[in-house]
């Protein structure tokens, strides 16, 4: 009697549970899509009826401008490639230098405790005030953008590498050392796998920051690159290609972020 009473709801509940969850998540996804679509529709109507055409463009004309003005123009395509190149260079430099310095600083307690506070203090400085200095030092070409992007990207990597190394269980390090592992083996097989979560947090943050640095430097002063064209369109009150260009940059940001996340998933798979 009591047995059946318990069993009956269980057997009935099992097939229903995933379905209800599925319905719920579909509901959430559709509400979200509806919301985004609604905002776009409102934007379209408002921009057509009441908006100032020098400041706001409706989404439909932004899409038109994307193909007619932005992507068909060889100069703008070159600018997009240049900005991408600057971001990739700055990011690669930031990751390499940040990882190397982080491993060096985090490897012993002495270096960490003496150097890490200095790094944190430097990290706390709003670097954008040094932007004119970068322009003076590296000129108005891509070098200044790469350098500025690097200076933004290197700190998140460095800080997260040091923080991640600190979180490695000392027991594992001791075990590896007592079994005769060399320093390089320890870094490769013990430290790295355990700091990978923290490291990738730093990598993702560094990607956002590098992009931020490159775009800031381009907006400040440039003769090429996406920042130059966004500034140009904004100053000539031509909002449709401006929004289209911003959309491309936003897609670039999301795409680069997704690449880093895919790599992260590959490297953290062993933990599951």
């Amino acid at each position, binding site marked *: 009697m009591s047995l059946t009473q318990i069993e009956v709801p269980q057997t009935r509940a099992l097939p229903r549970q995933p379905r209800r969850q599925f319905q719920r998540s579909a509901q959430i996804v559709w509400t979200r899509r509806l919301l985004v679509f609604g905002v776009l529709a409102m934007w379209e109507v408002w921009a057509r009826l009441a908006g100032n055409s020098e400041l706001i463009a409706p989404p439909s004309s932004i899409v038109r401008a994307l193909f007619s003005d932005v992507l068909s123009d060889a100069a703008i395509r070159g600018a997009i490639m240049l900005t991408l190149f600057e971001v990739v260079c700055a990011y690669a430099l930031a990751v390499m230098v940040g990882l190397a310095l982080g491993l060096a600083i985090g490897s012993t307690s002495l270096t960490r405790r003496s150097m890490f506070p200095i790094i944190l203090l430097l990290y*706390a400085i709003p670097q*954008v*005030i*040094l*932007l004119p200095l970068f322009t*003076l*030092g590296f000129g108005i070409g891509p070098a200044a953008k790469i350098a500025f992007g690097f200076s933004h990207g290197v700190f998140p990597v460095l800080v997260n590498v040091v923080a991640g190394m600190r979180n490695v269980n000392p027991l594992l390090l001791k075990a590896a050392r007592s079994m005769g592992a060399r320093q390089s083996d320890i870094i490769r097989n013990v430290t790295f796998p355990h700091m990978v979560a923290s490291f990738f947090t730093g990598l993702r943050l560094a990607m956002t920051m590098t992009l931020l640095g490159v775009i*800031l430097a381009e907006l400040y002063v440039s003769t090429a690159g996406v920042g130059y064209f966004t500034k140009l369109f904004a100053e000539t009150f031509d909002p449709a290609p401006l929004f289209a260009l*911003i959309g491309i940059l936003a897609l670039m*940001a999301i795409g680069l972020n997704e690449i880093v996340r895919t790599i992260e998933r590959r490297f953290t798979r062993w933990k599951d």
Partner: protein
Amino acid sequence: MYNTDVVTTAPTSGKVWTGNDIRDKKMDKDILKVGQYTTVSFEPKTCTGAIAPLFVPPMDAVWRAFIVLVQTTQFWAAVSTTLMTISQAYLIAVVLGILIGFLVTRSNFLVQVLEPVVSGLFAIPITLFFPLFILLFGIGPASKVAYGAAYGFFPIALNTIAGLAGVNSHYLNAARSMGLSSFGTFRHVLFPAAFPVILTGLRIGFFICFASVLGGETISSVSGVGRNIALAAELMEPARMYAWIVVVIATALVLNTLVSMIENRMRGH
């Protein structure tokens, strides 16, 4: 200041100028020497060697420029403009961030719908939209207020959502079943439980706000600290630029210490 030093040392060093190229070489050498001397005694950040020595003024010149700068009314006007801009932007970001975070967490469904939208928007660098802020709000402080508020809003809203949505539902059920009013629940259960996470958001939001207002002023503006730094650079007055930079760095470090002190004290309760 530095320029005149080099020009006077070149002729008095006893060499006769035979042509422009020789003079240039001589000058380059002197510049290099002075540069090496000054960079050694200067802040480590400029020691990278990549920055041309011409743009690294001697420390005493920076100090003198700082003394002159502090006595001008222009300095205090710029500082007060920037402080006003930052406080307005931060105030807007805090009020909107906490309000929207609170409203969103009133329903579990809304959290699941909106949280990915907000965090997805935060992944896009808002700096991209900076020309738009200039377009919409003009070149004065209003565009920096909007820009700083937009930047500061996201971490505050996201952390408020995370904090309030992360409160253990057992606590809320217990409070409700013991007859606590909804305001009482908020005052004694919800808010204290979410407070540490919200506080982190407030701290991150403040520093993002600070940096983005200065950045906006540097890129395109008519007044404020950032504008003055860019102006000093454009006018080739490195000593004055460094003096400004030192002021901002000192302010940032003091604020950082202050904020972590406040945070530690509030967490202590």
